[in-house]
């Protein structure tokens, strides 16, 4: 399965299991979504459970909030990362707050799926990685898978969660990675990182499409005698600080790799965690290998912006030599 199949499969399993689940958004019904993630689901579950909405993101999230208040469990799609912003008020003012505002009476079991990230030669607003925007909103959880299996297991957990979850899908690897993934139902807990490779010299933290880019750099790093502990964060908030702390205490060094702009990002929080949890163990300044604080360039300039395995190698090596 690739990640598109895996997500489709997770939705399929949950739709079959729970009649309270509805799936909607722009073009997700008849067309099966612009990335074909929901393909076949409308035919299988009917147009009252899997359907197209009018073109209005605020109402997509806003109606999901109402549905959740009335006992449904909506899974909505934002067509691209750059089109979540019209829904921002609904997300920050309601989705994240309804439980607290109602003192726990009204939960928000809503999943907002967001294809995000660059590297696909897209138009403007189709390539951004603004996960830190959402991670900092109290009341939300932000989940990002890096493999088909994780996408399936994490999405199932997300749909079953009583809390609102922004499920950000690294569209660059939607079809780039194939994996054996069980057709059976399984879930992966939200809030737990995955140690991809263990190592002793440096902790490398990544998520989404960047996990693969780090993996591409691993052979050369090994060649250079650098033993890498690669951690796939999986959940941006709540962050698995325990796993991070243990690893940093072991390696004394941390490099964070992400597509997001550098400043005020997830990377800043990672550095804060490294300091708060492992200050006395740090042998080099924690390093952010992240994108420029600029707009993602259009395709012809995107190679300047995207993080390459070479750059990852270069920065890890510098940190290890510090």
């Amino acid at each position, binding site marked *: 399965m690739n990640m598109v199949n895996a997500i489709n499969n997770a939705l399929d399993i949950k739709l079959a299991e729970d009649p309270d689940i509805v799936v909607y958004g722009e073009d997700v019904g008849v067309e099966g979504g612009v990335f074909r993630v929901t393909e076949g689901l409308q035919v299988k579950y009917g147009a009252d459970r899997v359907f197209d909405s009018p073109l*209005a993101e605020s109402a997509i999230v806003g109606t999901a909030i109402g549905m*959740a208040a009335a006992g449904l469990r909506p899974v909505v799609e934002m067509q691209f990362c750059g089109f979540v912003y019209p829904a921002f008020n609904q997300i920050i003012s309601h989705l994240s707050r309804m439980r607290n505002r109602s003192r726990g009476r009204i939960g928000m079991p809503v999943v907002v799926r967001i294809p995000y990230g660059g590297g696909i030669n897209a138009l403007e607003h189709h390539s951004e990685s603004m996960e830190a925007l959402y991670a900092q909103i109290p009341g939300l959880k932000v989940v990002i898978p890096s493999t088909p299996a994780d996408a399936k297991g994490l999405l199932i957990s997300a749909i079953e969660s009583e809390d609102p979850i922004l499920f950000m899908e690294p569209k660059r690897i939607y079809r780039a990675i194939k994996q054996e993934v069980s057709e059976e139902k399984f879930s992966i807990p939200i809030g737990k990182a995955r140690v991809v490779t263990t190592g002793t010299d440096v902790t490398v933290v990544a998520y989404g499409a960047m996990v693969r880019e780090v993996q591409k750099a691993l052979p050369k790093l090994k060649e250079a005698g650098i033993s890498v502990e690669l951690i796939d964060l999986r959940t941006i908030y709540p962050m698995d600080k325990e796993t991070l702390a243990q690893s940093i205490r072991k390696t004394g060094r941390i490099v964070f790799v992400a597509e997001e702009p550098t400043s005020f990002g997830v990377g800043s929080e990672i550095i804060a965690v490294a300091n708060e949890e492992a200050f006395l163990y740090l042998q080099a300044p924690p390093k952010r290998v992240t994108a420029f604080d600029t707009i993602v360039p259009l395709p012809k300039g995107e190679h300047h912006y995207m993080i390459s395995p070479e750059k990852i190698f270069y920065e890890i090596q510098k940190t290890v030599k510090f």
Partner: protein
Amino acid sequence: MLKEFDATKKKMFRIMDDDGRIISDKHMPVIDDSQLVKAYHDMLFARTADHMTVSYQRQGRIFTYPPNYGQEAIHGATAQVIRTDDWLVPAFREMGAWLAKGATLKDTFLYFMGYEVGNSWPNANHFLPITVPIASQLPHAAGIGYAIKYKKLDEVVFAFVGDGGTSEGDFHEALNFAAVWKVPVIFVVQNNQFAISLPFRMQTASDGIAIKSLAYGMPGIQVDGNDFLAMLRTLQEATEFCRAGNGPVLIEAVTYRKGAHTTSDDPTKYRSKEEEESWERKDPLRRLRNYLVGKDLLDEEDEKRLEDQYRSEIDRIFVEAESQPAYPLEDVFKYMYAEMPDDLRKQQVEHEKFLQWKESNS
């Protein structure tokens, strides 16, 4: 009636004149006399509570409060038609409707005293919390409508918003979704002529608000919101329309905010005494009282007595609310997530340590 006063006709639906005399009894609402008197009493209660809340605020016993004064007929009529299983999606200025939905006055007080728990309305069924960002609650109403239709329930959603709120994008998106989905939502716009200081004609260039229904392909009606009978009839028909599966309805209830926007506001800054006086005569309670007195259903003596009784009842409730136990630290954290993340727990523990230190160092 919805057809006869359809928005394109540009006629406002009224049953009573400004003095409570019947102009036309063609569309009288279905309500028996005792119920009518009860409705009047409920409105009187709400008005009394409203006035007293303003005084409590002046005494520094609650924080900011948005008075309902002058708009009670809309809430009183809603109270008559809304059922236990129907949904109320509030704006923030329809206390009479909240009370009808099962919300208690005590909770209302608690909320405006600054306790979230007041806004959780433990005694009210199908009542969303009050939410401050204007018009953003309307998409929720459309979503609830979808859930009702999906589950094939016999429920209707009553969603409130002010005239100012109709300028927000969420108003547009919510009405559009509700109409496309054909779900049972009654959008009640309380056109009280102002959004804080902004007069209605500077809010939109349209000919009233009911006409905006045409943009969504749903019925719209402009009704005299200070005319209890007209308001009730309109809501009765709208509810019927919704229950029959015909989709949403837009109601523009024309009224006037006789009080300040909130207790922090000073209306003399932006409107004239003359304007205020011109609306005085249209007061919804005055009009209904005249009507009831005319029908010999009301006795001024009774009313005085009742008002006194209300006052002491309300005050008792207020005092009870004032004895609410202190807001515990854990309540800041407890409701953020279904399962509290470790991080949050740690923040609470750290803060408790600080409080202990503070205690022992003072």
